[in-house]
């Protein structure tokens, strides 16, 4: 099976719930375990939140496309956006050994979560010049 479903949203934090519902429904259709689906949901929400807040700087004139393809025992999620080019896979991990309660402002966790919750993550620039983040979550 290699079906793809996609969702396009305006880059607005109000639409995060819509993205999560889309991922949740698709995960159910493919029979992912609850835990596995929850991890994928968290990774996608963090990725889309980062694009809206940092890529588009919370201006809602941008568009984000979330495409999910079913693969045997796995889901591939591709997120494309027309924000300025940025590779989130190259960001450094936050210093997790320091208590978050001692930091002035915790940050950088979104990218850390992406890298730790999915099995494979890759970034490329599409032929039409958009950011594309691919995340593979396998649950066997």
């Amino acid at each position, binding site marked *: 099976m290699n079906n793809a479903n996609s969702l396009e949203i305006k880059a607005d*934090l*109000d639409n*995060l*719930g*819509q993205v*999560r*519902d889309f991922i*949740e429904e698709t995960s159910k259709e493919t029979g992912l375990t*609850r*835990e596995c689906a*929850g*991890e994928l*949901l*968290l990774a996608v*929400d*963090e990725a889309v*939140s980062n694009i*809206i*807040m940092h890529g588009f700087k919370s201006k809602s004139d941008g568009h984000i496309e979330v495409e999910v393809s079913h693969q045997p025992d796995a889901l591939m999620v591709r997120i494309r956006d027309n924000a300025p080019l940025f590779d989130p896979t190259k960001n450094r991990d936050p210093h*997790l050994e320091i*208590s*978050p*309660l001692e*930091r002035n*402002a*915790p*940050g950088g*966790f*979104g990218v*850390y*979560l992406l890298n*730790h*919750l999915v099995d494979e993550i890759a970034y490329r620039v599409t032929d039409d010049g958009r950011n594309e983040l691919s995340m593979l979550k396998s649950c066997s």
Partner: protein
Amino acid sequence: MSAALRIAVSEEKGNVPVTILHVTGDVDSKTYMDLESKASEVISAGASNILLDLSGVNYMGSAGLRALHGIVNKLKSSGGGKMKLLNPSDAVSRVMFTLGFDKFFDIHKNLDEAVKAF
């Protein structure tokens, strides 16, 4: 399915007065500020022992942890106080454990025990 964030407030008397924030729905990059604001409001009104009941949280992203950090900072700047967590849901536990935040919070599974711990 996604659900709107709701926060209800109640009071318990243990060794000291404890203000409980019952959080339900989704805490994401949009709504986390509402949680921080509600906590700020009760702290400004005099609460210094805050118990966050997280059993009804349907979704929490890293922004939710930013809210918890903000509440701890608000308590510090208001002359000291304590925040404890009650029954984090699976969604809360997932983000807390993945980022290692669970080590830094006092987490309880039972309301009476949590109230007495202040």
